[in-house]
């Protein structure tokens, strides 16, 4: 195996959570929901996955991955559900509430890995390592590339299909593009559609967290995510909120960040350079969209 192949595999590993969380953001923004909370939903997914795998891994055996990942998706959806509820019931701006929930999730993980879920020797702030039954299989032997990358591709294909071919996909796009028209002309329950979009978006982010735990880290710890949920916003926007485009931009950002880490190692170039490039790319995409006389997204739905 060549070092180039290993580096490419690393880039794809890095792009996996970015693609899935990017899909979460793309789905939300398409549906007129400003979910900035993929980071927190991803962390809660990772929490649920590791909890289920650590506590019931012995009983579940080879079903561990499926059950734990389902738990991860549900946890992500529930975490997003808090913001969805606050928006629907109390008209709380989801931009604010999801960011607050991100911070709460980070402190919650910190509490768990220094408290109830800490590894038995109680030295390191992390959980015990997951058993082999809870780990995703390798995709390319000898590299770190794992099965999660395929799941990311499948999810992207599924979301593209939902948008293009299904009634619910049409409702989501209509609610996001013009909530009033969707309500008046399409008889679409915009409020209900937004809630659904929010929950599905959270579930996707929860899956991203589950895959990161089961494919890469094999344990829960505080800095599990180097801001995947925030980078995912750039990933989704650069892709024009198109699910298949998210795969391309997710891989691009995976290469960018892996490259930045390698640069830091080899030449002491700070890896924070990557977030500058990401911000610049968002601004560039905004400029291009504005010059073409349209916005990057539809107007947010009235809550």
């Amino acid at each position, binding site marked *: 195996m060549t070092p180039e192949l290993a580096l490419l595999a690393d880039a794809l590993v890095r792009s996996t959570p970015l693609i899935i969380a990017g899909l979460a953001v793309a789905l939300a923004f398409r549906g007129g929901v400003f979910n900035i909370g993929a980071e927190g939903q991803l962390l809660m997914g990772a929490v649920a996955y590791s909890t289920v795998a650590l506590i019931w891994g012995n009983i579940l055996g080879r079903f561990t991955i499926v059950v734990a990942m389902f738990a991860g998706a549900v946890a992500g959806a529930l975490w997003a559900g808090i913001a969805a509820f606050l928006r629907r019931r109390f008209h709380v701006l989801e931009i604010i509430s999801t960011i*607050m929930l991100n911070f709460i999730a980070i402190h919650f993980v910190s*509490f768990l890995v220094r408290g109830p879920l800490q590894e038995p020797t109680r030295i390191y702030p992390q959980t015990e390592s997951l058993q082999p039954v809870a780990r995703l299989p390798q995709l390319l032997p000898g590299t770190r590339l794992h099965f999660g990358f395929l799941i990311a591709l499948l999810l992207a294909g599924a979301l593209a299909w939902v948008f293009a071919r299904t009634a619910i996909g049409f409702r989501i796009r209509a609610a996001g593009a013009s909530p009033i028209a969707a309500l008046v002309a399409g008889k679409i329950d915009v409020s209900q559609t937004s809630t659904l979009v929010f929950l599905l978006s959270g579930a996707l982010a929860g899956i991203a967290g589950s895959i990161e735990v089961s494919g890469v880290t094999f344990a829960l710890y505080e800095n599990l995510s180097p801001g995947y949920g925030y980078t995912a916003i750039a990933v989704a926007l650069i892709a024009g909120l198109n699910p298949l485009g998210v795969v391309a931009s997710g891989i691009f950002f995976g290469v960018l960040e892996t490259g930045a880490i390698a640069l830091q190692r080899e030449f002491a170039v700070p890896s*924070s350079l990557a*977030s500058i490039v*990401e911000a610049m790319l*968002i601004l560039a995409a905004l400029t291009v969209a504005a010059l073409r006389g349209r916005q990057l*997204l539809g107007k947010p739905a009235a809550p």
Partner: protein
Amino acid sequence: MSALETFLEGTVRTATPLAFAALGETVAERAGVINIGLEGAIIAGAFGSFVAAGSGSVWAGFLGAALAGILVAAVFAFFTIRIRADQIITGTAISLLGLGVTATLYRQLYGATGAALSIPTMGITRVPVLSSIPIIGSPLFAQPSITYVLYALIPAVWWWMYKTHMGLGLRATGEDPRAAIAAGINAGKVQLLSILFGGMLGGIAGGVLVIAQAGSFAEGMSAGRGFIAIAIVVLGRWHPLGVAAAALVFGAASALQYFFQAMGWALPYQAFLALPYVLTLLGLAGIAGKASAPASLGKWPSGS
């Protein structure tokens, strides 16, 4: 100091940077601009003050903070007013940009650790007579001088916003920019200036963190204060005095940990760290239907 005084002092100390940032954001939002990039202005201000204070003067530090905040706000203004890009997405990018640029510059200029860099810090100035008032005197009037600047700024912004012709123009722009233009107000200019003012106060908030509190810079030390400040603006119902009160409530929630420590009550420390964010959510839910945002907030000039 008694436990109560320690708690009150912590309340005012935590509230100070939040109130600076939220007061600036209030002005921007009353002009119809929601600047989610406030976080970027705060971290830039923190870094700017750290660099400028190296010259040896705390006031040079605050000048650097203000300039850095204005610079970040200018980038935001360019994209939202000139390019007419969406305010929320631009703001998200600006926050990312501010955090990335400051982290990169810091590591380039001072190395990854930045160890043992000392800058002058602003000590406590006791206001004669007032600081000897029982219970509240010391927490309110034994603070760094920048806090007294804030005390003066809050009523000044209130007076300017509600009692002057320019303040009326500001509020008109936020409610209905087209009507404001028809009445002869240069709405674009009003928005630009209020964004820059908001950036300046955001920068100063970052300067407070470095010069009056931490005494050093750390990557990401703004720690979401920009977003909390935006929530405080909502809780304070877009009114300078309400915003100041909301910042104090917020400071009190954060300062509860000092009170608990003083009383010897044990709780996981993460619970205290998470408390301000939980409180924001509850607060936002609690004022549902009672507050109304400026009518054109976030919609002009990017929308149709």
